[in-house]
């Protein structure tokens, strides 16, 4: 270990590193001190830290409300209802949806994608997707391929993850019932041509399902203006909420078969799931505590503004990419252009396994990143890293230029030692 790494190693582990904390602006509504935990750069897995308001909203619910929503006439239950509605409304506003009831809460993007895919596809249907998908898309598709005889076509993406919409259009068939694509890759950050895909889908009358796990909260999405049919999001990444929260937007007029049936509250006389949204897809007691946190997270995003969040992350990404481009012996994947990707970068250090790089970043430098296949073997096959995986650095709104510089220096040190 060099002197300078030793210095970092200490400084990131000692609480009260004031310069860094000021730069991060943690006085203004951040939960916990980042100095206690090191430099977190795994925001594509889940964002950290969370805005203080998120923790407060959850604690307030647990401490002072407690009741389940939709099931009681007493005031605490109605208060829980209101928390749920306000959270739904905030999500609808952020994503450009006028009718709040079209936003259904789920446990995460994975459940949302399962609901959309399994709720829509029937035996004999054909579905088109891309070669950059997360397993949260790919596995449900493989499941309906096996159980319902659905056929799948994968539009090939370039090595940097980009998709030519014409390649997707060429795969459409008369029995294509669904197009599924990610909005941005969780491996390369590549932003996909969703507007073009939506135009293609609309012209053919085929529903388009977009996986916004990596974009909701950090990249503008205007569902109704783009005319998207189904949009899956997760609550714990860019939306700043807790884990275990997600949701699905379902366009009016599009019906899905619910994944689950059960109690929904006021309509107990009905023998079947109600037709009305969101109740139709929300059987069982809701995660009201999680919803309270998600609502606070989305309100935080609305107050900061997605444009401002995107701008800040793009600035940090530019700095990271510039720094990485100076290091010999690195392979950096993806577009390497902040205008064409979200703040996610995958790379390898020549001669060093990805897992070892990640582990050294953590142990020697206090920098948390993720190594491996990132639940997206399709994407790694596309970029040529299916065998060795990659190191993924994913920045968040609370990272600082100092964090980025430390990460670049750390990688330079690891590359130097290897080369």
């Amino acid at each position, binding site marked *: 270990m060099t002197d300078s790494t030793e210095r970092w190693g200490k400084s990131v582990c000692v609480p009260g590193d004031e310069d860094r904390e000021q730069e991060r602006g943690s006085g203004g509504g951040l939960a916990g001190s980042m100095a206690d935990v090191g430099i977190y750069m795994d925001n594509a897995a889940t964002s950290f830290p969370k805005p203080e308001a998120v923790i407060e909203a959850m604690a307030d619910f647990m401490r002072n409300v407690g009741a389940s929503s939709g099931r009681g006439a007493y005031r605490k239950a109605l208060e829980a209802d209101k928390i749920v*509605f306000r959270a739904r409304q905030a999500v609808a506003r952020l994503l450009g949806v006028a009718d709040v009831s079209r936003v259904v809460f789920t446990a995460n993007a994975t459940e949302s994608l399962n609901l959309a895919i399994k709720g829509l596809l029937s035996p004999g249907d054909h579905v088109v997707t891309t070669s950059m998908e997360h397993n949260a898309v790919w596995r449900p598709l493989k499941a309906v391929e096996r159980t319902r005889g659905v056929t799948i076509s994968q539009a090939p993406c370039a090595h940097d993850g980009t998709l030519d919409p014409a390649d997707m259009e060429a795969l459409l068939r008369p029995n294509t019932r669904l197009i599924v694509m990610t909005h941005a890759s969780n491996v390369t950050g590549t932003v996909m041509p969703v507007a073009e895909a939506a135009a293609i889908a609309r012209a053919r009358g085929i529903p388009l399902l977009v996986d916004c796990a990596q974009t909701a909260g950090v990249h503008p999405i205007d569902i109704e203006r783009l005319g998207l049919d189904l949009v899956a999001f997760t609550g714990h990444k860019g939306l700043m909420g807790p884990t275990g929260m997600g949701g699905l937007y379902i366009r009016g007029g599009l019906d899905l078969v619910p994944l689950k049936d059960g109690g929904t509250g*006021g*309509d107990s006389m009905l023998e079947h799931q109600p037709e*009305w949204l969101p109740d139709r897809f929300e059987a069982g007691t809701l995660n009201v505590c999680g919803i309270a946190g998600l609502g606070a997270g989305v309100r935080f995003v609305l107050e900061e503004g997605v444009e401002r969040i995107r701008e800040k992350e793009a600035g940090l990404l530019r700095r990271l990419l510039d720094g990485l481009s100076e290091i010999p012996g690195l392979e950096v994947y993806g577009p390497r252009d902040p205008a064409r990707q979200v703040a996610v970068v995958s790379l390898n250090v020549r001669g060093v396994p990805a897992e070892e790089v990640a582990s050294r970043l953590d142990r020697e430098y206090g920098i948390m990143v993720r190594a491996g296949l990132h639940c997206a073997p399709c994407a790694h096959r596309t970029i040529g890293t299916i065998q060795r995986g990659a190191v993924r650095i994913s920045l968040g709104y609370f990272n600082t230029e100092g964090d980025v510089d430390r990460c670049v220096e750390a990688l330079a040190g690891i590359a130097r030692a290897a080369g």
Partner: protein
Amino acid sequence: MPFLEDIDIAFIEPCVTDPGRVRLYAEPSRDLAEVLPYLNAVINHATYNKDGPSLTFMKEFRLITIYPRRITMSKVQNTTDAWQVLDWLKDLINDTYDRRGSITPVHGVRWRPTALQIYGWLPRTNCKACGEPTCLAFAVKLLLGERTPQECEPLFFPEHASLRRAFFEIVAAFGYPAPPGT
């Protein structure tokens, strides 16, 4: 600061006439009496009862009555629907209040419920206790002013408490006050 800051739901129960839907009442954060005649001018097909006072109207399939300190809604899809409509109503009230200088208030009745709508809030047993052959016939007479709600005795049976509440919301529009305990 807007005229009306908040409307809070205070009570929800399943809709008596439609088990898939809910009815509720909500409380506005301030007295709405002064805006009712202006709302009556702005909302198409509303019924204003100046003695209540109250204002009743349909928003699509939902029946809404606004009293000075209470708003009732029935045939609402679910609580999400309820909150969404209450937000819409709050904006409408604030907008109407802001523009009241250029609105001519309307104090008269502009819409009456139909006999079929009234019928939906009767016990619908055709028991003839009121002296009419059917509940629908009773509803028609009620509209003509030839009968009063009190003449349908079954409506006041304990098992019809919810129905009775809903019934009086709709007939409030013609100035029948709800008897005590409803």
